[in-house]
């Protein structure tokens, strides 16, 4: 069976060399690790592209087995008491730790963009004062949530989301080790639902294996609980030909199956990006999808809104409604 340990953790790369994606940046980190002198860094990127993994691997390569003593990791969901968190960083920075070969301690701040501005402001001083003995590594989703003075004191590394090929290669590796039975379209489906997020991909893979044993497209979509893209693609093509009734049937069917409006519209968006339609139509369609999405988030997630979307999509090609 799939085992009790999440594959995301089991197959998390321990060394920088094993990290998938963002090769250039990771290579540079490797050089730093060898040299032993890395600046303060901010790694910014979408979820699931390897930020935390890189930072941890870098720390491990820098400090080896002194990892436990020389590294402090804090993320936004960490400890309870404020005092604990507040004292921790400065005390750790002040502490003298025996580290090999002239290395520095490392403080890892995960999800750094959730730090308040005042806190970041205070952090910058600590970064400066203890720069000789301590390095900071911040990981975040959006680097503009980090204030400029901190950005100025760090090297900003940007991670892109993983490409489909990269996801696929990793999935194949895992499949081989775990001896997973799969069909090609199953892995394609996982890549489609993951949207460049490795964590998502591995979770979906594991869930499909745990639930159905065999990884094919049908099972994947069942597990991920998403409408099958084919249905949605047909719906879009019907819209582009003005066939309202056919298109509406799909929406109605999905609604009856119980999919949530957010999922439906997310799926429609993703399929719309890759479906083969004229450029102008695609542009207009994505606009309408976005606006409907906003309404759904506001709270009006009803069948009527989705039907309205479909109707507007059909109207885009109607000569009487230019």
């Amino acid at each position, binding site marked *: 069976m799939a085992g009790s340990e999440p594959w995301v953790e089991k197959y998390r790369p321990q060394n920088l060399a094993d990290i998938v994606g963002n090769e250039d940046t990771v290579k540079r980190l490797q050089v730093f690790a060898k040299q032993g002198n890395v600046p303060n860094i901010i790694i910014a990127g979408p979820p699931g592209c390897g930020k935390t993994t890189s930072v941890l691997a870098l720390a491990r390569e820098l400090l080896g087995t002194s990892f436990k003593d020389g590294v402090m990791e804090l993320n936004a969901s960490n400890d309870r008491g404020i005092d604990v968190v507040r004292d921790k960083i400065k005390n750790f920075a002040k502490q003298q730790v025996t580290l090999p070969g002239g290395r520095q301690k490392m403080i890892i701040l995960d999800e750094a963009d959730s730090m308040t501005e005042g806190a970041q402001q205070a952090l910058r001083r600590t970064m400066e004062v203890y720069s000789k003995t301590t390095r900071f590594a911040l990981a975040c989703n959006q680097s503009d949530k980090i204030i400029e003075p901190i950005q100025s004191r760090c090297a900003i590394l940007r991670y892109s989301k993983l490409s489909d090929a990269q996801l696929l290669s990793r999935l194949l590796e895992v499949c081989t080790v775990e001896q997973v039975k799969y069909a090609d*379209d199953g892995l394609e489906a996982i890549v489609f639902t993951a949207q460049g997020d490795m964590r998502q991909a591995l979770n979906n893979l594991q869930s499909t294996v745990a639930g159905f044993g065999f990884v094919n497209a049908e099972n994947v979509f069942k597990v991920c609980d998403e409408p099958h893209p084919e249905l949605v693609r047909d719906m879009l093509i019907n819209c582009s030909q003005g066939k309202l009734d056919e298109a509406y049937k799909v929406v109605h069917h999905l609604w009856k199956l119980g999919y949530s409006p957010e999922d439906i519209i997310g799926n429609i968006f993703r399929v719309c990006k890759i479906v083969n339609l004229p450029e102008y139509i695609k542009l207009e369609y994505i606009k309408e999808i976005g606006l409907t999405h906003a309404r759904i988030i506001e709270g009006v997630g009803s069948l009527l809104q989705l039907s309205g979307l479909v109707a507007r999509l059909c109207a885009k090609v109607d000569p009487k409604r230019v």
Partner: protein
Amino acid sequence: MPKLKKSGSGWFDSSFAKLDFHSASAAASSSSQKQQQQQQMKKQLEKAEDSGSDDSDIVILSVVKGPPKKTDNQSNRKRKLSGIAPKTESFSPATLPSSSAIWQRDKEVFDFKAPTVKKSTVPLLDRFPPVSQADLAMHPKKVAEVAGWLTTNSKSPRILLLTGPPGSGKTATLRAICNDRRITLVEWTNTSEVDVFFQRPTDDSEWRGGRRDDDQYEVKSVSETKQFAEFLRRTDYCGWSQSNSVSSDADRIVLVEELPNKFYEDPQELHEILRSRLVGTRRPIVFIVSDVASSFKLGPRQLFPPAVVSELNIHEIAFNAVASSYIQKGLKRAVDKLGASYSNAANLKTRLKEIAEAADGDIRSAIFKLEFALNEKNALGGASKKSVSSSAEASGVDRHALDVFRALGKLLYAKRGPKPKEAFTAAENLLPPHLSHLARPTPLESDPDDVIDRCHLSADKLTSFLHENELDFAPDLESAQRALDDLSLFDASSRLWDVREDAVERFGGLIAAKSVAFWNFRDGGPKNLGFHQMRKAKATQVRREADLRRLECLRAFDDYRNCWPVDSLTTVLTPYLALMNARVKDYDQQRVLEWHKFPLRQGRRYGAGANTSLVDLSGVNQDQRLSEEPDDVMNIESFSDSDSSD
């Protein structure tokens, strides 16, 4: 009920990238071996870490420390300097137990050599700080301005405020000048601990929806502000309890760069303390506050509003972003000190120029990029062959990243490939006849999705930039109108700001990019704009200035608030007061009235009108640095559309 096609292969359209299964699986099998090895090693390490026995400790230590070196003393000294305890023992390889594959492997991975000059433990940023004015990579006029303030007599204001973007050299300049003149800087440091994360929400947080800037500060920080007040009081006296030397007062200056956190939440308290402690002070005091564009709360306008500045007679010197030529000077100094090697002088100059341009006025950022550009052997890589470089290349990190202006260029120029693709043409033919004039002959060279991914810009900023520059690229009015309409669409998608932010982040950026790329199509290819400077987005800056002015106006005309609503104050009362040249109560009010001089075509009705524009009309991104450029203006390379894409 719609029928699902049987799950065969390739239910995705051909436009979906065909994933290459074969080569991937080949690679997989070899790397799966590696996987297993890795798993093993991981387990080993864990076991070793967990087991507390002495044996395994010694064994692992010996691997980590490597062979002994003759330069033990030197490395020890270096370690002392860098604040790490000196090595006390070393093991020779002979004491290692019989080598198994795993020890060898560990030795390769964890190979620590003692640091040398080239591989110091001190970050490059701090290794060669400027110690005298000659070392500074700054415009000499600015340096002279600060130096001038330091030498003036006691009549002039004794409080100095330095503002400017981060990395513009404020602290460095001050320290260098003080070093030259042997002036001691007495600096205030926060003694309390660092507040890092969100504090616990209070009961009332539900109705506020947990907004980001609801900070709460603990009791500790109150005493910190008291300590700050104490500090100010003590430093005003001639007898200093802190320092040992007995030299005269003139040799000491107080520096405050790091303010107690409480003041960011509650600037009023800071103002009160300043008023009570600093009025009539003789001691020179310097405050350094960075301009934080993203946050008003942390910036100098909030901490030192114009009212306080005038009341306390504070002298303000604003630093601008450092000009590229000066950054290059600083980089050259770093290169020389490091002893980094490079192929030839011309090459070096180009490389440094690339790095300096990419740093965008922030000298720290430039040093980081230099650090990244140095390869393992401490040599500066050669200049790239392309005529225009990307900042990512200059920083030598990521070939695929795009800097902002290149990304904008790709979207706005909207170049299309010369050859039509079959699938694309087939899709375009699906357009109904009344829309066929909107068909495009060939697909775009750069996919907007891809560009957005690579440029790492938030959707908000992207739309602002696109909006600012679109009109330069729109081929005709209709395209401009459609593109602008799309840009404005998502900003109005919802009344609720969090829904709106989400909508803009997810769709707004993509729509803006696609729309601009679609509508900027011209039959004969993109407009040849020759050398074109991308404009920086001004909308948020204008808005922020307007908010500040409104506050100023409200404060200045406090006594009119009784009968005048805000809008009438700014649109009726103050303009008419200005027109009547009315005598007003104080300087604040006068300053507000000054705004109502517009750059009208017929000139003002009353009084002379000089260039009264409050907004820089050229809107070019050099506007910030104009005052800082030296006389030999750097020639920015032409960003023409003959740019070879990557």
